[in-house]
């Protein structure tokens, strides 16, 4: 296969893995102040993602690194163009990362409360902004003939892209609720279920509206496969909601995860073979062929990735196996 296409698929897979895995731990962070009534409950909530969140975040770093290595122009245009959005994500991830480590290392309620809200904010912002960023990718942004972003931060905010952000926020939060229903004990699963049903209803509405608007705002439905994937995401989400309401948490988690994966597939499928859509002139859109690295670099990186990715999947999978039990108060480390 053409290595350029392979790397486009790999970047898409890395983003899909990132949204699938970090989606639920963003969601857990967002739900933390609302579902955790006591300090003990809050610690249980945080510890439910304790062993996983950092490894999940590396999916994002790897996606960024792969983009840089395989499509330098994509990386350069996207990161310099979406400047303030990415800056906000960075600030959020900084606060979130240290919040995990700092939060329970001091007894004062004010200290713990502060870091709980930082964890909330640090999870909410990226969950929202990655959706905004992805919606902008497919909708198109002002890119000039020299591959440079020619707009401002506020050009990234339109009803459609904000709806994209809201959709990812709700999908991730639902995924977080489902994860908590699976991993916590006592009253928390029940509370997570209640929250999940409400959030799920909102997610269905947001995704439905997003799909309808996509007919006008994007060209995603001009091709069969991305179109099917997009509507498939909605079907999976509806099934997830139904599973949750019938108390099948595992099924709901997998189905909503499927919705996230299908949504990502629709997005990247709709982009292909472009990586950045220009709203100024279709000819100025960046394609995988213009943006890519040399064949030699792609070959080297292919060998590296095909060797390492299976190993990573194995040991990350093993982590989930080791920590498969529900959280009990005596295993708390955070």
């Amino acid at each position, binding site marked *: 296969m053409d290595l350029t296409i392979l790397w486009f698929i790999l970047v898409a897979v890395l983003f899909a893995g990132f949204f699938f895995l970090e989606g639920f731990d963003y969601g857990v962070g967002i739900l933390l102040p609302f579902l955790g009534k*006591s300090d*003990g*409950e809050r610690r249980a909530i945080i*510890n439910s993602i304790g*062993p*996983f969140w*950092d*490894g999940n*975040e*590396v999916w994002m*770093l*790897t996606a*960024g*690194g792969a983009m*840089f*290595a*395989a499509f*330098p*122009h994509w*990386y*350069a245009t996207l*990161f*310099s*163009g979406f*400047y*303030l959005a*990415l*800056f906000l994500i*960075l*600030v959020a*991830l*900084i606060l*979130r990362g*240290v919040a995990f*480590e*700092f939060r*329970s*290392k*001091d*007894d004062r309620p004010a200290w713990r409360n502060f870091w709980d809200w930082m964890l909330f904010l640090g999870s909410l912002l990226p969950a929202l902004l990655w959706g905004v960023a992805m919606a902008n990718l497919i909708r198109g942004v002002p890119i000039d003939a020299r*591959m440079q972003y*020619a707009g401002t931060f506020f050009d990234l905010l339109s009803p459609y892209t904000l709806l994209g952000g809201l959709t990812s926020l709700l999908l991730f939060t639902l995924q977080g609720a489902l994860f908590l229903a699976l991993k916590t004990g006592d009253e928390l699963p029940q509370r997570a279920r209640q929250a999940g049903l409400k959030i799920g209803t909102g997610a269905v509405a947001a995704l439905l509206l997003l799909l309808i608007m996509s007919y006008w705002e994007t060209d995603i439905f001009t091709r069969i496969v991305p179109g099917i994937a997009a509507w498939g995401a909605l079907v999976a989400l509806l099934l997830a909601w139904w599973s949750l309401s019938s108390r099948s948490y595992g099924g709901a988690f997998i189905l909503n995860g499927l919705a996230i994966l299908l949504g990502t597939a629709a997005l990247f499928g709709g982009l292909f073979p472009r990586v950045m859509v220009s709203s100024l002139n279709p000819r100025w859109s960046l394609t995988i062929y213009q943006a890519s*690295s*040399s064949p*030699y*670099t792609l070959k*080297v*990186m292919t060998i590296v*990735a095909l060797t*390492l990715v299976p190993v*990573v999947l194995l*040991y*990350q999978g093993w*982590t989930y196996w*080791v*920590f498969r039990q529900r959280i009990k*108060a*005596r*295993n708390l*480390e955070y």
Partner: protein
Amino acid sequence: MDALLLARWQFGITSVYHFLFVPLTLGLSVLVAIMETIYVRTGDETYKNMARFWGRLFLINFAMGVVTGIVQEFHFGMNWSEYSRFVGDIFGAPLAVEALAAFFLESTFLGLWLFGWDKLPKALHAACIWLVAFGTNLSAFWILVANSFMQEPVGYVLRNGRAEMTDFFALLTNPHVLYQFPHTVLAGFVTASFFVMGISAYHLLRQSQLEPFRRSFRLALITGVISSLLVAAVGHFQGQYLVNAQPMKMAAAEALWESADPAPLALVALVDEKDQTNTFEIKIPALASFLAYNSFQGEVKGLKDLQAAAEANYGPGNYIPPVTPVFWSFRLMVVAGLWLILLSFYSLYLWRRGRLEEKPLVLKALLWSIPVPYLANTAGWLMAEIGRYPWIVYGLQRVEAAVSPGVSAAAIFTTLVAFTLLYGVLAVADVYLLAKYARQGIETTPATRMLDNSGEVSLWI
């Protein structure tokens, strides 16, 4: 201020800040792994408690290193998009491999280590921290491969207006990284050794929890003596190498304006960059030649000759980096390094005679020397990076050609201020927690610690 200057300040501030946390991570992960291995092999619970205690300090520090590292990966695209376009073909690869091979390893196995005390067999649990240690040091290798390409481009060809990779293996065996990697890793071991020695000295001073802190001290003393000596030795050979590979950087580090044979070494100098001269200096004859060539003869090129050669090579322009900061950061690094060698050897001498604990002054010196490796690390990077100026990629791309054209000075200024404030606040919180836990010391009965609001006992705050 213009966007270029702001972008440089931002990269400088965030990189220096990031590298405050990295060296301790590199070294302390290995020390904790050694402690836990001793526990597994002997069954001595003291070593387990030590591993947990130092492991907790490791984690507080590690979190800061991780989150500030994410900023660095995003930076290249955000502020330096033209750089990313120019070298992405080469520079992106080690970054991607770093994430794939090292970040996954360290983050996943750190999670297993932290939460796996009761879930994993002892030996497997110890293996987890070894994998963390391996991952962090591996990540240092990959990012230094990337940095070394900026210092000394190898394995590339200029094609389509950018640098394209032709030989991946050449990148990995770049002579520059073969010096830089051991120097950096050893500096990490020095940092961790003095961190452990300093905090142990604090407890020895207070006569609290003597047994575990004596053992911690002994371990760190051994690694400290070895690593502080080796880091200087590697640094010396690195300097000899750079005299040929980056003569401009070394001439700036010596504030040597005129070529000389034999060349003197200025111990201190007042540098006048405008008139290209030193208004005052104390120098030792022929020492620069000796350090460069192991001989009291041999020409060391001066800045003016190198400038002329660079103009002939690359066209008109200023190719002399800011001399004052390079000169002084080099001296700061060397003096700090010498102090650490002296202190560790004197401590070893006292320790061998069993008299260290009778010398409160030495213990205090050890405690107050915890920041010294940090000064040396920072100074070393300032010398390496400022000394590369005006190039972002040595001989291939100048910094002004690398900055993002579409990002306004106002945007960079905003983020610069925000990062600086945020980093300042986090530094306070981080040092507060480190000091709190360092003072608290090693717990002997971890299961009796604290009660949650929920009334349940937890193992570890």
